[in-house]
């Protein structure tokens, strides 16, 4: 198992009921698998970063990674 800190941003907090949690996932879990486990509409446009960097499709996470999931902001 690996520990991943999931940071939710903006109204996604209200959908999930938390803003930040460290959760356990099986080793080699992908970003998509983590997103699928969250109560967030998969069709909703969002931006996901891993340790502050953009993630590629199918990217596998490592123990201690920080995943930030945000609606797509546009700078007001």
């Amino acid at each position, binding site marked *: 198992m690996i520990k991943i800190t999931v*940071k939710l*941003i*903006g*109204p996604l*907090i*209200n*959908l999930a009921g938390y*803003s930040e949690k460290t959760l356990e996932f099986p080793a080699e879990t992908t970003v998509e698998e983590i997103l699928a486990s969250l109560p967030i509409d998969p069709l*909703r*446009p969002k*931006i996901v*970063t891993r*340790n*502050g*960097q*953009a993630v590629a499709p199918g990217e596998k996470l490592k123990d201690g990674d*920080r995943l*930030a999931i*945000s*609606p*797509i*902001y*546009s*700078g*007001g």
Partner: protein
Amino acid sequence: MKGWTGHILRINLTNRTHKIETFGQEFAEKWVGGRGLALKTLWDELRPGIDPLGPENKLIIAVGPIAGVPAPNTGKTVVAAKSPLTGGFGDGNLGTRATEHIRKSGYDALIFEGQADKPIYVYIEDDKVQYFPAEDIWGKGTYDTHDYLYKRYGKGVGVLSIGQGGENLNRYAMIRSLEGRAGGRPGIGAVMGSKKLKAIVIKGSKPIPVADPEGMRKLGLDDLRKVGEINKQTGWSIQSTTGVLSWCNEVAALPVHNMRQTHHPDAWKIDGERLNNARVATYGCPNCTMRCGIAIRDHEGHESELDYENVGLLGSDLDIFELDQVGSLNYLCDDYGLDTISAGDTLAFYADAIEQGAIKGDFRFGDAEMAKKLLGQAARREGEVGNLLAEGSLRMARTIGHNSEAYAMQVKGLEISAYNCKFIPGMALAFATCPIGAHHKDSWIITFEIKQSQRDSYGPEKAAKVIELQRIRGGLFEFIVACRFPWIELGWPLDHYAEYFNKVTGLNWSLDDFWKVSDRIYALMKFFWVREFPDWDRTRDYPPMVWFDPSNADKEGPIAGKVLELDKYNQLLDHYYNQRGWDKRGIPTRQTAESLDLKDEIAEVEKYTKLE
């Protein structure tokens, strides 16, 4: 003519006279309204080199053809003048009931020229213009000023006012309206103050000229409801713009410590979640169903309406991570009528300059109480420090010396909004090419850079994205005059705005027709700058040098060891100029200007520099 009233009210404050002037369909279709109308007026009527704070400058208040018409987010008005902060073209927009009343009074724009001999305010009701002494409110903040005028005229009127900042010619003074709406970052409030014009009150009773009034009414009201529903479904208003603070902190784009740092462990203390929890009221502009203003109450009992820029510049950039204190600082800026962005950047620069040993002073990062005192001194130009701070960061740096200009966080004299581009090349370009100085309103591409592009790319795709957004945000939304939020934040399709425009004007424009107007306005804004600064070169389109300084790189985090690279930035700037049809100096070529129907303007600008 439908859509436009075709009338401009010109008020001369020196001799207290006014006249109503007209314009025709050709002018209307060429410049449309808002930013376009204001720019063309200033270009035609201002002599280059005039003192922006003298009687020769003109204050333009301009609306657009869909402004005030019930439809998504049409409550905005543009305010413009030659900027006392930058010396170039300056404008901004704000939500206000004045929008609807300007149109209902029968005007597309108001022009204020000259200078009153003593403080006054002007009351406009349809064709009637009255001048009243403002001694009772001169020296008061914008909140008291609004209360005073609402008591006299009722809350339904449109009020635009300045605070002590504008009265005392603070160069980043703004114009205020409603509970916390403000516009005119490049010192347009100081221009109003220089004319001794404390406030404009306006009330109109005429119908807004609409080609298809019944069709527009049905469409507009229906779309207002739909935008409101999307807002509810997405939950955007829960944190509004302030949600972006946490994201900037994650991706190392947050302004911290005069933008020397890009993230901070205490950022959560002032984030959108905390702000939403502290909310006591929600405010918005007229004709808005996705209100963005989250008001909190500070420890002194003041309501303070916050958005991300306020929290980023008056909070994290000053190392202040107490929401209550950020609220107090924001309230003071609103009351004094100061731009929160420039005020925050200027205070951060002052603290940084002290820390660097460039100047002696008592202010330190994180000192909210001292920041409050300094805001008051800057607004009133009290003492040496107050006078220095009232000048903005670029003039301060040139006074202080010691190479401090490198870390004055501004472009062309206008301070940078709350996005730290130490390693975000495309957004640095967006700030650097913004036509009024560093503002996020014309183009914002950070999520594009992080998600759909390579963050470290300086390629043509980033220049293209900046231009695409400038055409929409800095063009379309500024000349039809509407808030960009339904489109930019909720995905409300742009086609709707063409539909509103066509229903109001009776024309049949496509979005491509708008882009040509956008490009024309951008070219003329550049000509305005070049006429003021004939030695224009591309270095004026550079972001602050500290973003290129390897010693300023983050020591840890997502962008550790990285900063912008100047040679690559120049390549990016070349992409931008090439795509715009501008030369290596950043000036539209003759061919480009001719293709935008700027024949007269070419003749004028060539008195100052030769076009390629």
